[in-house]
């Protein structure tokens, strides 16, 4: 047991100071990881497989179908909300607006906001919300899907959402999840805290310069 912990610590330190290219920083890769042994040129090498966002299919505020393929070659930020949310959502989206403004000219960047109340938040309701938020174009998609699909994908983003509690309120947390072009999780930020959202914006800029991201199409 102790050995495993030591090994983990060593790995953690090693990966923390893995030489990047020149002076650029790199962000950590989050989520589960599994070592896989592959045979390359007759030699056994250990590779690490990171958990990634699985395939999905939702509909956005323009009634366009959005799948995992729509996000190929894009860095994106995901969150979960609903349009009638009386508590944290207005704060989250006031802050998300800053992310939107910063990157809306970048076609390799997206924001996706999943509604956790698909019954009320139909596509026209999402479109109206987008209009009132002053968001246009394809930078920020508000996604509608079945409750099951939405709640299932939330788990992949490590976000917790639940059914209505006895007071009729939805419980969900206000995290913004940063996902890279390989659909790996690269950061989680409290979307209700302006300071963390400022950090998110800085981290997106860092991520965009990582060799893996520059190369990916």
């Amino acid at each position, binding site marked *: 047991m102790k050995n495993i912990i030591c090994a983990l610590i060593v790995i953690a330190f090693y990966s923390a100071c893995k030489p990047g290219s020149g002076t650029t920083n790199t962000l950590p890769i989050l989520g589960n990881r599994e070592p896989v042994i592959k045979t390359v040129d007759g030699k056994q090498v250990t590779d690490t497989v990171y958990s990634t966002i699985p395939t999905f299919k939702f509909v956005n505020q323009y009634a366009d179908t959005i799948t995992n393929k729509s996000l190929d070659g894009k860095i994106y930020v995901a969150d979960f909300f609903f349009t009638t949310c009386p*508590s944290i959502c*207005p*704060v989250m*989206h*006031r802050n998300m*607006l800053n992310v939107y403004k910063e990157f809306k000219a970048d076609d390799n960047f997206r924001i996706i906001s999943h509604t956790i109340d698909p019954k009320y938040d139909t596509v026209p309701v999402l479109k109206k919300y987008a*209009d*009132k*938020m*002053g968001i246009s174009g394809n930078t920020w998609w508000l996604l509608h899907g079945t409750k099951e699909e939405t709640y299932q994908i939330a788990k992949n983003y490590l976000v917790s959402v639940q059914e209505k509690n006895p007071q009729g309120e939805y419980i969900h947390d206000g995290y913004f999840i940063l996902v890279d072009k390989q659909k790996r999780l690269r950061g989680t930020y409290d979307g209700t805290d302006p300071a963390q959202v400022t950090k998110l914006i800085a981290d997106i800029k860092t991520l965009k310069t990582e060799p893996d991201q520059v190369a990916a199409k």
Partner: protein
Amino acid sequence: MKLAFITGIGLLFIVALVASCQSDEQVEFNRYYSGGSVLYLAHCQNCHGEKGEGLQALIPPLTDSVFMKQNRPSLACYIKNGLKGKLSIVGREFEGEMPAAADLSPIEIAKVLTYVTNSFGNKQGLIDLQQVQADLKNCR
């Protein structure tokens, strides 16, 4: 030592004098206003923003002094029962829904309204408990 003592007493005296110069009304206002700022943070700021700026076309700002003045007798009802429908605020159209803050007591409504109607460029004086109680009786 003795000198310091006398100076101390003197200072206290001056402070007491200044404090009592503040009229009772001012003290009352300050009590409502500071209580209201705490309530605003807990119950309103998420939607209406730190500076009462609102959120895009979704949530109206609280900076329209004319609206506040004209609708002063209804403000308590808006908070208590919520508000829905078309509004024109600072010359912009809004059509949303504010949920009822049913858990706020009349004294809390009075405090938060005193804060709101005297912040963000508004300056309309005290809205006290008696006022709110009377206004709440006339909610439509």
